[in-house]
């Protein structure tokens, strides 16, 4: 196990270094001088002398070789100094501190919903394979995987907010401020964010359950005279859960991506919306910082899942 953990950590570290390289050099692909792009955002700096420009270039460290700039940027990121937003004129860390909790709050609820609902639905479909629950669930999971999150959001708003008036159209309130209003506001976004997760988890659960059910030890359990409930929950469920766990890592990545769209539709002031607005206001410092933080987050979650996976299933460790 120690060897496995060590291997995984080294791999993750390598991946982390590559992530920083990708983010840094992707931003450098921007056509033009980063300094001039920066200046283009600020009208009062437009008529600067060349000397003042050089001065500014030195201040930002843009006169140094590119590798030095990269190292400085990584060193800054390690100190949690991700730069200052051009548009908001605020420290990027501060901007994120306000928005990340919102995205993660919604995300965690959506992850919990997709995992529990997905497992239960997939289990039902597998146990009643070919019967009516399966016949209804299977096509629905296909729709759930392919329905565009933003379109689902629009339909939900139209039906439940505009036509029926049961839930608010959009917005976000902190649950600590007004719990009831906050909960009413997050119902629709959470449905949108978890649609893909529920459907893909249910599909994975169904197929891995169908692989476990014909196994010998399940037949033995039946032969022992155990009840169906005990066989499904104690024997079959445990083993078929293993592939479902890896889906959580994928699910988290898809969900963060989906939050870009869902937060736009529901006007939720989270990271996804900050990302979109920063892209449109060409606030590359924010885009760079957000891309880095999100990728590192995904990496960490996948690392934890990998380690957990290795602990759960010894076969993985020796492979």
């Amino acid at each position, binding site marked *: 196990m120690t060897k496995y953990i060590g291997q995984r950590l080294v*791999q993750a570290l*390598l*991946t*982390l270094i*590559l*992530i920083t390289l*990708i983010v840094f050099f*992707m*931003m450098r*692909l*921007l056509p033009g001088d980063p300094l001039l792009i920066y200046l283009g955002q600020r009208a009062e700096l437009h008529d600067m002398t060349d000397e003042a420009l050089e001065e500014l270039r030195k201040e930002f460290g843009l006169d140094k070789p590119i590798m030095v700039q990269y190292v400085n940027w990584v060193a800054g990121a390690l100190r949690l100094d991700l730069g200052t937003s051009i548009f908001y004129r605020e420290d990027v860390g501060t901007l994120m501190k306000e928005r990340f909790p919102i995205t993660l709050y919604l995300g965690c609820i959506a992850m919990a919903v997709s995992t529990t609902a997905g497992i239960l639905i997939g289990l039902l479909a597998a146990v009643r394979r070919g019967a009516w629950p399966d016949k209804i669930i299977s*096509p629905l999971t*296909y*729709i759930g*995987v*392919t*329905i*565009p*999150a*933003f*379109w689902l959001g*629009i*339909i939900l*708003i*139209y039906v439940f907010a*505009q036509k029926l008036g049961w839930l608010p159209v959009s917005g976000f309130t902190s649950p600590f401020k007004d719990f009831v209003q906050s909960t009413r506001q997050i119902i629709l976004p959470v449905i949108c964010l978890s649609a893909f997760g529920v459907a893909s988890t249910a599909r*994975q659960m169904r*197929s*891995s359950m*169908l*692989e476990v059910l014909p196994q010998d030890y399940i037949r033995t359990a039946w032969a022992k005279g155990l009840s169906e409930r005990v066989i499904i929950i104690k024997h079959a469920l445990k083993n078929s859960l293993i592939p479902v766990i890896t889906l959580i890592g994928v699910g988290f*990545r*898809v969900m*963060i*991506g*989906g939050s*870009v*769209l869902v937060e*736009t539709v529901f006007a939720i002031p989270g990271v996804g919306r900050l*990302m*979109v607005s920063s*892209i*449109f206001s060409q606030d590359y410092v924010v*885009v760079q910082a957000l*891309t880095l933080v*999100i*990728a*590192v987050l*995904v*990496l960490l979650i*996948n690392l934890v899942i990998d380690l957990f996976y290795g602990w759960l299933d010894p076969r993985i460790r020796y492979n």
Partner: protein
Amino acid sequence: MSDGPAVIGKAATVANFQEAPPRISEWKRFRRVFFGRGMVVVGSLILLCVFLTAIFAPWLAPYDPYKPGVGNPLEKPSKRHLLGTDNLGRDQLSRLIFGARTAILVGFVSVIIAAVIGITLGIAAGYSRGPANPLIMRLMDALMCFPNILLALVIAAILGGSIVNVIVALTVALIPTYARVACGLTLSVREYDYVLASRLMGFGNFYIMFRHVLPNVFPPIMVLVTLQLGAAILAEAGLSFLGIGIEPPGAAWGAMVSDGYQYMMSNPVLSLAPGLAIMLTGFAFNMVGDGLRDAVDPRLRGLL
């Protein structure tokens, strides 16, 4: 020694017997499994419709999709304009039909380029016993840490939001999946005896990779390609919904959903129709991909 010929004779009969059972042709078996499921047939029919629409768009569309004022702005669905008109008085049905072109074009080009690059990287990584493997695979891991839509969004934003750049962005986002699958498959294929035999016969690595590894990696990858086409079309829709991608007069389903959204209360069809088109196309690619998977290799069921 005396029973020697008898044994040979017996072995010969066994051999003959084994050759005897009639072989169902691969194509027949494929057809039977593929079209055996109703959902797959429905998916194939939807795809056929989408393809035909995309190809024959100029002949199918009742109006010029880019010309404003072929009707009054925001007309309700009627006989003249089956899906109504948008805020500029353009015929929504014609725009929907031309939107199929955008979706299919972006989907196909990005998925195929991504598959070619991804498979090449994956086979190289899987076949190599040197540093190429960890290097390529860690790079793919790193790319996989970026949510697809986010990576595509950032790349498209950096390069500028033209349709070509959206294709580039989606391609980069889709490469790692192919590389991973191809690498995994290559790792198992390279252990087979026919690869060893080929090497003993003195063939070079490139020849072996191309002649032996690629054909064996190909069928499962085809399944992945089909599934990814659905994903790419969904991602393109997401990008154009956010306003990145095709330039204004052009028609893209995601952008149409977003434009129609403002008029949801007065004319919901404007937003519902393109959304439905996105979903049905994605759904069809998924169904066909699933059907292909079962037909190509039943053992892969549920693995990809």
